[in-house]
């Protein structure tokens, strides 16, 4: 499992999380966050890892119970995780995870 404490070699396998522009100020201006991973991790573990230093960003994505906010969508290789196993969906090193706000509101 990847944790924020994992600091692998430069070439170590990792998983990337791509943020929408509106959230990038909450990640120090970064558009891509990377978590080292030796093997598959769940989306929940991945979010824990990449938001360790960005508590406000973490709260924008999930509520205090850990649930993904209703209009936040997370895609793993093109599939929205709610159609997979939700936050328990496994992601493997080399895969890309997209965070996209859903089309909602008025």
């Amino acid at each position, binding site marked *: 499992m990847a944790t924020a404490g994992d600091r692998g070699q430069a070439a170590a396998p990792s998983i990337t999380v791509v943020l929408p522009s509106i959230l990038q100020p909450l990640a120090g201006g970064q558009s891509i966050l990377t978590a080292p991973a030796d093997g598959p991790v769940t989306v929940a573990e991945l979010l824990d890892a990449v938001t360790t230093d960005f508590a*406000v960003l973490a709260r*924008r994505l999930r509520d*205090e119970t850990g*649930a993904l*906010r209703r*209009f*936040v969508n997370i895609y793993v290789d093109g599939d929205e995780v709610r159609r997979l196993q939700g936050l328990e969906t496994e992601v493997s090193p080399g895969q890309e995870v997209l965070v996209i706000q859903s089309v909602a509101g008025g």
Partner: protein
Amino acid sequence: MVGMTTAKSFVLAIGTKKGLWIATSQDRREWSFTGPHFLMSEIPSIGIDTRNGRTRIMVGVRNEHWGPTVAHSDDLGATWSEPEQGAIKFPEDTGAALERIWQIYPDAESRPGVVWAGAEPISVWKSTDGGEHFELNRGLWDHPHRTEWGAGYGGAAAHSIVVHPARETVHVAMSTGGVYRSLDGGASWEARNRGISAYFMPDPNPEFGQCVHKIAADAAVDGRLYAQNHHGVYRTDDNAETWNSIAEGLPADFGFVMLTHPRREGTAWVVPLKADGERIPPNGELAVHRTDDAGGSWKRLSNGLPTGEYNSVLRDAASVDTAEPAGVYFGTRGGTVYASADEGETFTEVAAHLPDVLCVRAAVVAGA
């Protein structure tokens, strides 16, 4: 020669469905605006805290995508701060998640730093650090009635908090649940709804379950409070032990707003709406009604207000300031905001075409 009195100015904060506007004025007639702050987030609650030698504006922010949070500004909105871990966060053992902050209520001068909040799901929170971190009130959260409290159209929330400035008495109103009172600073709570009708329930006089829309305390008479109910306007003179109707003389007994004078006995304002189906100003004629005798009679106030107004005024979309004479402010779901510098005798339009107005708060602040 330098004036001998401290300069005062006025701040008016307007929370809408799509952001916050902040206005300042020297005379309550000409206003300068900044905003929108928090564009595309709704601002259902605002607290302006003028204690501690500063003006702190606290706002409940809710974004459809990114959820709710509390932010504060000590420079009239030029910059905003948000605690990293969030100011309001349900403890893990509750299994609950914050949905919306409905009320931010700075406590009395005698309790600097204390700020209360009411939220959805129905919960009351207390901060002792000026609104930066709040603790869940366990007494109310663990109340045996909680599983039977319901949700109004806008959600299930504690939306009114009234704290006695000297004693440990706290009144809370929730929709739906009614009025709850604590005599020990919030440690324990009892329903106090005797006399308030819940016509929409099988037993119209239950211990709790009423849909009280707003409560406010009389600043000069101990134990006297006023309530605007979902149909019904009431007063209590015995600290909420019993409530009696004061709706006679009003064109409608429905509405959301209840305001009281910052100092004067018996003075309160409501904004009646025709209901239950219509929920517009009666006949489309917008008017504020004020009583100066604790509900014995009401005076219709509409100077400066338009006819042909079909938008409602929500429970927190109205406020008074503490000046003399007191200012009265309110906004509509049509995005118009009106201000009166003479206790409602005359109104002027201070903003129009904003998104739905959810919350209005006004304050007298030091400095020009």
